[in-house]
């Protein structure tokens, strides 16, 4: 452990002092505060809506969870992508490793500092959102809701740390920060945008819609007011397509997080959450939510462990070549 905390301390100071972190934190805070306002509005208008709507948002609004789905990868990757290769490029790595520390102290210290920075960011954001909402609503979360918020916070931290570890892995694998930043941006775009496009294209290709008219004429007096109705065959194909899309999107950690996070808050919307075609809403208890999403959560944790273990081993085995 020699040196781990010294490295972590220095890295944490760097993170908090960096414009990069401040910009991202500011962006997340801005979006989350807006989401909190919208949540408050929604809760005021809907009597049975609980405090957690602050975080889950409403159908039409941007939520904390969505902020994390879209900006989470960027946040995590931004904190990790130049962890090692920046020191290599600047010529500080050989000085650092020339000190009486073990090599793993460097990567462990950087990991700890990044994780601490992300924890601060998430806890700070959740805290500020609650701090904004409670005075406006005049009431706070119940115990059940509070525990849900705590679990959501933890899940969000793990999810962001996963992205940071992927960034660290890029920084170990590449020699130059310009390469790892491109890899990070590509990853972010892939999981934030491309994956849903890809899912839609692939499912459209694999599940062709039935030919002919999608609408069938319904005779008056046959259980309806007459006019047109979407054919059942078409409905079946659409449902199949939607299920396939969901499966493909499940490959994305952003989606794993979104599902788990929405379920934990217990505000579950079928259409947005992507389970089935029809829209429905139900409330899950925390235990139910965790039971239903353990695989999602485990997948994120496993991803985190793989990325960190990979960077750890690659870094320990990497050679300090002349000129680093």
């Amino acid at each position, binding site marked *: 452990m*020699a*040196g781990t905390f*010294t*490295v972590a*301390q*220095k890295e944490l100071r*760097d993170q908090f*002092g960096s414009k990069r972190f401040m910009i991202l934190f500011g962006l997340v805070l801005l979006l989350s505060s807006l989401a909190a306002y919208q949540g408050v509005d929604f809760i005021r208008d809907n009597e049975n809506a609980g405090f957690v709507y602050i975080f889950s948002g409403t159908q039409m609004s941007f939520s904390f969870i969505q902020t994390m789905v879209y900006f989470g990868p960027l946040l995590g990757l931004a904190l990790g992508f130049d962890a090692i290769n920046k020191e290599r490029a*600047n*010529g*500080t790595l*050989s*000085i*650092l*490793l*020339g*000190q*009486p*520390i*073990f090599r793993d102290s460097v990567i462990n210290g950087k990991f700890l500092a990044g994780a601490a920075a992300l924890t601060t960011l998430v806890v700070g954001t959740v805290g500020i959102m609650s701090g904004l909402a409670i005075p406006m609503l005049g009431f706070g979360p119940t115990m059940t809701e509070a525990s849900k918020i705590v679990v959501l916070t933890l899940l969000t931290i793990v999810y962001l740390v996963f992205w940071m570890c992927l960034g660290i892995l890029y920084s170990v694998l590449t020699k130059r920060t310009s390469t790892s930043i491109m890899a990070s941006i590509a990853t972010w775009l892939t999981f934030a945008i491309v994956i849903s496009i890809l899912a839609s294209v692939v499912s459209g290709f694999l599940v062709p819609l039935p030919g002919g008219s999608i609408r069938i004429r319904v005779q008056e007096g046959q259980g309806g007011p007459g006019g047109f109705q979407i054919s059942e065959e078409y409905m079946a194909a659409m449902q199949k397509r939607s299920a396939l899309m969901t499966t493909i999107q499940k490959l994305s950690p952003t989606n794993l997080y979104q599902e788990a996070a929405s379920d934990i808050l217990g505000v579950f919307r079928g259409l947005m959450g992507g389970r089935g075609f029809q829209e429905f809403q139900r409330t899950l208890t925390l235990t139910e939510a965790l039971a239903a999403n353990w695989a999602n959560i485990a997948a994120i944790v496993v991803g985190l462990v793989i990325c960190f273990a990979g960077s750890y081993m690659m870094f320990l085995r990497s*050679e*300090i*070549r*002349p*000129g*680093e």
Partner: protein
Amino acid sequence: MTEHVIETMMLTKKYGDLTAVDQLNMTIDEGEIFGFLGPNGAGKTTTILMLMGLSVPTSGTALVAGYDIVEQSREIRKVASILPEYSSVYGDLTAYENLDYVGRLNDLTKDERKEMIPEMLEIVGMSDWGDSKAESFSRGMKQRVVIAAALIKEPKVVFLDEPTLGLDPVGTREIRELILRLNKEQDLTVVLTSHILPEIQMTCSRVGIINKGRLVVTETIENLTRAMTGSEDRRVEFRLSEVPSGLIGDLESIEGVKSVTEENDRLYVYGSVDSDYEVSKTITGHGAVILLMRPREYTLEEIFMKYYEEG
């Protein structure tokens, strides 16, 4: 017998098919300034990285200050410092903070750091810049901070890899003087690599020449020069008003003179010290005037080139 601070035993490093360091055996004594010479890619830096435990040897090993470089590399880094080639400081930290970080990594207490850091800044002449961010520093100033960082642990051995690379003549001289002073005052063992041969000649007591990963020779500079000239002979450089025909032949027939060569407008006479009188007399006897006469020692460059060609 002086203690060997560094002793390598069949030290070998391979990068794939390339053998960067090939069965290196050498010793460096305590308190020495050892110049490590070799063309680019000869394996100097790789050797130094291995001696600091930053790179693992493919086979063989070495002892630095009594510690094994593979098994006890962390112990080595407590007593040895490296100033790596192209190394730099953290630009977003001040000079003081950079040294503070290195001090912490060496487990120096708060009080020790408070005492040592200003002292180190003083030694490298950076006292006035302690609170400035390192990114605003010139190359030479950064290099001084790196040197201060290398000294803060009060090492027994320092490895300086091209310490004056990219520095101006004034900076180069200051660093040279600093190395000599530390060596003298603190009995610091210095291993120095440099491409600037006169610098090596001015600083080092002994040199090791390495080529293609193999050690060609380790010797003191005087002995190398002597070996080049052969026995006690030396070379005298002449510049004459003219070189009359027959002069060279007559000079060569003088007892003690081994050979005479003419290069550009200079005449080089190789021979024993005793022959100087006869040589001068013969030249003036031919009607030529001696404009310049001086003994010319071999420069390290000439020695260097000879061993490079051999290696």
